[in-house]
């Protein structure tokens, strides 16, 4: 919250849209603002009434550069919008930088998401340090329910819960790299960096960077799902293949390859396989190993076919590993398997587990 926790003294708040951006139809702006307000009414007892003239509690407008409040905007990009905490006069007012390109999708700055964030300020919310929270200061486009648990706790601390609240599924808190119970969804190499997927986020690890950098998946790859099951790099074609459910995507660096997503069964999996748990490419052999439940397959990248004699048992062929895998990556001649909060360093040459560590040690914890 802001210092002294400013909030509206009653739950019935008025708003007025003073002007509109030419980037969107008036109805699109109205809908974006209404949906942004609904984000907060869903979890509080607040109600919002629209005024078409006069002074409302929350005056919403589009302006550029110096627009009358001595907090000027800066042209395209940079500052997108701002809003003032609850109070008289300018309190609650919400301003959008007209020099941005406003959209209703992910192609530029999505008005709904920015409005939901700014209206959070207008209701008394300050910025969150949680990268997955709506009130995080940096712009990102995401899908699904916009509020995280941090956002909901914050707004309900001011106004209480919605007595008629429908069941909402807030985004979970951002994964903590030093959580001793940390598990991974998928791990892959990408042009010399290691990418670790966990929930809606991924970490980037580079030898020259001591600290992993955490980012929302959607911020980098808007077209792949929020949850990744498996991923591997095929360096010969400079591709990273991402798996989620029964679909797979091919990325060339940060760009989606045309023709994707495709069904995983195109690789030769039986129809009953609905999800891949882990995938890893072994450069020395040209094979990619796919793990699902207690079994694994070997895929020949050169011929584009599954090797005969598969699937085989994980437990039998990788002794010491347990019977399931969450994620896998091949580095420096070793297979790193991840299962729950443990990490197994497996020597492909000697066919045995060399080391067992906590999963979070992979992130230098």
């Amino acid at each position, binding site marked *: 919250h802001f210092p002294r926790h400013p909030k509206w003294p009653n739950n019935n708040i008025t708003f007025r849209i003073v002007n509109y951006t030419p980037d969107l139809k008036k109805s699109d702006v109205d809908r974006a603002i209404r949906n942004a307000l609904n984000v907060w009414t869903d979890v509080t007892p607040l109600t919002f009434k629209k005024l078409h003239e006069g002074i409302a509690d929350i005056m919403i407008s589009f302006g550029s550069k110096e627009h009358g409040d001595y907090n000027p905007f800066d042209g395209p990009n940079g*500052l997108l*919008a*701002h809003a*003032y905490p609850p109070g008289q006069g300018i309190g609650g007012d919400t301003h959008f930088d007209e020099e941005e390109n406003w959209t209703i999708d992910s192609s530029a700055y999505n008005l709904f998401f920015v409005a939901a964030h700014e209206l959070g300020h207008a209701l008394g919310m*300050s910025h969150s340090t949680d*990268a997955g929270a709506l009130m995080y*200061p940096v712009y990102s486009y995401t899908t699904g329910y916009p509020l995280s648990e941090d956002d909901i706790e914050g707004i309900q601390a001011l106004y209480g819960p919605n007595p008629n609240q429908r069941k909402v599924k807030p985004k979970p808190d951002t994964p903590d790299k030093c959580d001793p119970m940390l598990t991974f969804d998928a791990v892959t190499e990408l042009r010399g960096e290691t990418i670790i997927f966990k929930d809606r986020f991924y970490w980037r690890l580079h030898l020259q*960077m001591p*600290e992993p950098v*955490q980012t929302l998946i959607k911020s980098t790859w808007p077209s792949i799902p929020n949850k990744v099951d498996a991923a591997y790099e095929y360096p010969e074609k400079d591709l990273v293949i991402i798996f989620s459910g029964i679909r797979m995507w091919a990325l060339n660096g940060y760009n989606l390859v045309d023709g994707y997503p495709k069904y995983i069964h195109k690789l030769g999996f039986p129809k009953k396989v609905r999800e891949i748990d882990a995938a890893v490419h072994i450069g020395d052999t040209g094979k990619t190993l796919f793990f699902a439940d207690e079994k694994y397959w070997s895929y020949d990248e050169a011929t584009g076919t599954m090797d005969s004699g598969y699937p085989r048992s994980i437990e039998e062929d990788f002794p010491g590993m347990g019977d399931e895998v969450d994620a896998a990556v091949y580095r420096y001649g070793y297979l790193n398997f991840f299962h729950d909060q443990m990490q197994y360093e497996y020597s492909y040459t000697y066919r045995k587990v060399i080391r067992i560590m906590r999963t979070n040690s992979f992130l230098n914890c």
Partner: protein
Amino acid sequence: LPLQSGDKDNWLLAEKYLRRFYGLPAGLQGRQRSSGPFETKMEEMQRFFKLKVTGKLDDNTLELMKQARCGVPDIGEYN
């Protein structure tokens, strides 16, 4: 030797960012770059964004400062 123009631009960007969002007091350019307040505010910003806290303008910090964001300060009042 004078800073390369690219480095100078980065420093100016960082100073402006910290002033706007972290309440760095306005002062003469050049004096602040290695001074206590600048380093303290830089650390505050790095802590907020869960970057490595160095007090220095490293690549990760600079990259984050360049990202599109809300104009409300990350700390303190906004009026």
